[in-house]
């Protein structure tokens, strides 16, 4: 599928964020594993304050894309630019320090520490270089966050003792507590009940405008409820990249999802 994305397209951008500076610019990134190409020449730009959903059938390369953006994997070619700074060759932790936050599809929390200790690690991160040897404390804003998610009473409980849904919420909290300017959410609603899912949706909506969010989601209600623009991946390539309405009505996208499209 030829990639039709160029910078010129944004003069015709119908989203409200089209005039904001570009937060994340993905330029022609490719990732190969041996003979298999997981991500092939993917390019798109996400403007500041925008909520971009990345969708596509299983195996389309969405999580690999996230891994490349965050630094878990290195690209074979291409460039990643964060607020104008080339981060393609920077290690994971530096990208995080520059404002790139993430939540994972499978919970990647600290199971043998308490809930409060989990959040404290996120709290301490920014100040650790000049406050290395003091006593750790949890910030009041983080306590607020725990309260928001209903976990404040369980602050001292061991994470492994929490229910799956609560652990998932902690996963999201860890992503939020860092106060990153750009947040990558990998299937945040995975494994959650409908009530919990609407909580997450409410939260994501509240982030819009202040933060730039890139979201991987399978639940189309969630996607069409919150996204400004949608990028569709298929077999590691960008199939379509457009506003919410256009994607909804795009026949090629429907074919890809229902498997009638062929490479």
């Amino acid at each position, binding site marked *: 599928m030829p990639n039709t994305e160029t910078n010129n397209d944004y003069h015709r951008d119908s989203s409200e964020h089209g005039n904001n500076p570009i937060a994340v610019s993905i330029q022609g990134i490719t990732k190969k594993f041996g003979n298999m190409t997981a991500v092939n020449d993917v390019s798109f730009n996400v403007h500041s304050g925008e909520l971009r959903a990345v969708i596509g059938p299983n195996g389309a390369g969405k999580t690999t894309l996230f891994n490349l953006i*965050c630094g*878990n994997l290195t690209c074979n070619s291409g460039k990643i630019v964060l607020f104008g700074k080339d981060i393609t060759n920077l*290690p*994971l*932790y530096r990208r*995080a*320090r520059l404002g790139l*936050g*993430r939540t994972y599809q499978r919970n*990647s*929390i*600290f*199971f*043998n*520490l308490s809930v409060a*200790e989990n959040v*404290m*690690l*996120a709290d*301490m*991160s*920014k100040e*650790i270089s000049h*406050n*290395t*040897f*003091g*006593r*750790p404390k949890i910030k009041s804003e983080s306590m607020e966050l725990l309260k928001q998610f209903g976990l404040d009473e369980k602050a001292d409980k061991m994470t492994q003792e929490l229910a799956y849904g609560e652990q998932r919420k902690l996963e999201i909290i*860890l992503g939020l507590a*860092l106060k990153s300017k750009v947040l990558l959410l990998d299937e945040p609603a995975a494994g959650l009940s409908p009530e919990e899912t609407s909580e997450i949706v409410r939260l994501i909506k509240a982030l819009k405008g202040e933060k730039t969010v890139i979201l991987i989601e399978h639940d189309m209600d969630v996607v069409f409820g919150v996204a400004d623009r949608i990028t569709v991946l298929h077999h590691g390539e960008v199939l379509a990249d457009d506003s919410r309405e256009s994607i909804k009505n795009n026949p090629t996208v429907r074919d890809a999802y229902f498997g009638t499209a062929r490479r």
Partner: protein
Amino acid sequence: MVRNFKAYLCLLAFLICVPVIFSPYYTSLVVKIMIFGIFAMSLDILLGYTGLLSFGHIIGWGIASYAVGILTSQGIVSNFFVLLLIALFAGIAFNAVVAVLALRTSGLYFVLVTLALAEIARCVAVKWHSITGGVDGISGITLPLEIGETGFYYLTFIFFVICLCLICWLVDSRFGRVLMGIRENEPRMQALGYDTWLFKYIAILFAGFMASMAGFLFCLFNRYVGPGDLGFGLSGEALLMVLIGGMGTIIGPFIGSVILVVLKNALSMYTTHWMLILGILFVFCVKFFPEGLVTILKKKISR
């Protein structure tokens, strides 16, 4: 503050009285327990708190010991404090180099690389016999301080208290929390913005500093240093102390030291097969009591 603060004070009070209560034979046994306690606690910084199993930890002990042996036997240094400083510096310096190499790897490879590096150091100690005394080591080392046996006991005690305080502080500090975070989930720590390599490096230097202290003391206590101070035997005993006592607990490694030193001392009167017993204990502990005594007791008490 640290939990069980009073318990630690009682322990220290008891230790202060030991030379008064016990005979010189048992007093020197307690000296040994304290020295190995320091070494085991330093190993636990890496194993229990940071999640790094380093067989190279013995390098700090061995290099500091050899520094003492070489400098005193050749008559180069006769001032106690200069000796201490050089020994600590040498131990840390070697750890600094070893850590750069070892941290190029992670996981199982890290364990193997540290083991290989320690063994290479031991081989060098054996080969370079003009300086190190080769297989025989250096004997007849004397303490450049006129303090006698009791004086040496209290010297060791002071070092022990310093190390205990360092560990207590570490557990409570942000730095310690970061190490524990690295142990639990290093990739997530990086995603949270932590330069985990740097923290691991500092942890190794910190632990190496304490191990050097222990090696310094043991060399003067034993009046001898040899390739065994860089060998598997000592590495294994320290590791077992941490395992038996409980990883990631403050006092666990010390308890492990008590058990192992007393056991070795008691058994040595009846059998020459200490290594067999050590090995069996090791296997038994890993299979049936991997958590260690202190952790098991803590769990029982909190029920």
